[in-house]
């Protein structure tokens, strides 16, 4: 199925998308440039979610904790400890990786509905912990990351992440790295084992693959990618708040992935983009954005369980990654 020709097509498509986004940076008006950089960071979050939900078939309702592990790991390191941008970003990644390792070891003992509830419970405990240590985390008020700490020094060069263009490019770099990393993972041997687990766990076990180890690796990679999105969000947008750890932020990546198409590489970007612009456009007419989210969720599971790109792949473009 994945031949040389289609491989070239896939990489070409991904490069084309990245190039298109780079061009958009220079032609979009300020408001849309800022919105799009936020969408890029959040679609990295959705990509991390997609790796677990789309390819392994594990529905987690607790990914907000991985996102906010990165968010708080990076944001508080700058705000309280005065760490530099690269150190804080790495700190956020480490927090997300360690947390997802612990949660993965525990939660993967369960399957199906129990897995969803366990991840939701752990995420809720994490959210409450953030509220409990309000002295450091600012509780539900959150913490503003000081602008002085958000300057990236690379050798002699320094980039001010507050600047809209720098911020957009930084978000795009992160997005591109994650896009190519996830594409590489799902096309690797490990990635095919993950899909095999999704399709038939028992048969994969019988073929001699270690189900637990493969799933755990997927949880850790997924959690770390989400943490990367969180850390980038803290550094680029300068705000860390408990809202990002609430159950709503566990459900949003599920919505974005379902909308864009689960188990497609570009689905997370498409889903996040469409959802953000739907809310943005309808906000002229109504403030009832939760209603739109709810209606979208129900319509999607009822009529388009494969999402936008999943449907396109099924009907017209079989090679779509």
């Amino acid at each position: 199925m994945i031949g040389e020709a289609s491989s070239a097509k896939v990489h070409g498509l991904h490069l084309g998308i990245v190039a298109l986004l780079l061009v958009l940076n220079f032609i979009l008006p300020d408001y849309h440039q800022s919105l799009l950089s936020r969408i890029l960071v959040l679609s990295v979050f959705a990509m991390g979610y997609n790796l677990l939900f789309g390819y392994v078939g594990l529905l987690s309702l607790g990914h907000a904790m991985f996102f906010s592990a990165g968010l708080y790991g990076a944001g508080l390191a700058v705000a309280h400890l005065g760490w530099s941008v690269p150190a804080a970003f790495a700190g956020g990644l480490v927090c997300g990786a360690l947390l997802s390792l612990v949660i993965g070891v525990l939660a993967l003992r369960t399957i199906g509905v129990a897995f969803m509830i366990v991840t939701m419970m752990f995420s809720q405990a994490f959210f409450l912990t953030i509220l409990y240590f309000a002295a450091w985390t600012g509780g539900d008020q959150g913490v503003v990351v000081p602008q002085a700490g958000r300057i990236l020094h690379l050798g002699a060069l320094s980039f001010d992440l507050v600047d809209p263009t720098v911020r957009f490019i930084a978000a795009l770099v992160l997005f591109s790295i994650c896009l190519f990393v996830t594409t590489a993972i799902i096309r690797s041997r490990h990635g095919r084992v993950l899909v095999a687990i999704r399709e038939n766990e028992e048969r994969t076990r019988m073929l001699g693959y270690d189900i637990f180890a493969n799933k755990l690796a997927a949880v850790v990679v997924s959690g770390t990618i989400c943490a990367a999105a969180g850390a980038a969000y803290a550094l680029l947008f300068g705000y860390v708040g408990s809202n990002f750890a609430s159950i709503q932020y566990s459900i949003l990546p599920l919505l974005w992935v379902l909308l864009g198409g689960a188990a497609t590489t570009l689905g997370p970007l498409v889903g996040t983009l469409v959802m953000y612009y739907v809310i943005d456009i309808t906000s002229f007419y109504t403030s009832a954005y939760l209603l739109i989210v709810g209606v979208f969720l129900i319509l999607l599971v009822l009529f388009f369980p494969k999402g936008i790109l999943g449907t396109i792949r099924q009907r017209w473009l079989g090679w779509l990654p």
Partner: protein
Amino acid sequence: MAFGPHLLLAVLEGLVSAAVLSLTALGLSLVFGVMRVVNIAHGELFMLGAVLAWAISNAVGGPPALGFLAALVLAPLIVGAVALVAERLVLRRLHYEPQATIVATIGLLYIIQQMALTFYGPEARPVPPPFNIRIALPWFGYSGYKLSIVAASALVLLATWLVLTRTRIGLVMRATQYDRETAQAFGIPVDRVYAGVFALGAMLAAIAAVLIVPISQAHYLMGQDPLLLSFIVVIIGGLGSLRGTVVAAVLIGLSDGIVSMFFSPTLAKIIATLIVAMVLVFRPQGLFGTPTR
């Protein structure tokens, strides 16, 4: 206040929350037990019950008891009807497939929440209790209404138990829970049983909400805590086990009341949530349940 009376007060408060909790959790447990559907919108159906109770008691007017009684009858019926519509229009079309129904009930959660915010508003509003009697204990006075909540919940629980174990409806429900396909083969209208169970689960949550609303106001975000606590109760008690659900509700309600009176409520919630997650990880059938076949 000395330690003894303080503890008594905590136990009384805990009993009240346990009573309401066991009704709410029983609704969740029935729906999961019979239909294998995890209803994430259960907390919002609870909230809807409370908000409707405010609206009905306001519309009726007159003495508080009249409005309250009207709410106690009408609010559960309306909530049950809403649940019935959701079941027919959405859940049945998804063939009760677990992942899809979870996503759909999340959608339902947002829709109900937004409707409440739009039509009811962000304020928290009280409903006057049907009667005001203070029962004088030697150390403090205690609200008679709160004690009547415990009695009313016990009555509803007893009625549910009788229906489940002593009537034909209960027999049909248990048969569906035990083996859906065999039940269907024996001519049980599984489809209608599912619709009825989903409505019944929602009505139990609504009754609990109407009972609690005179002592804790109606608010559009009030559904989240009951949802999590019901999950906790249902998991500890063993999914689909009625006796386990009631025992766990009393256990959780009491310990929640006592712990949050002496320690920070946030800390109490963190510990409870972590314990439940661990129970689910290491003993998935619950503390009182038996392993599934």
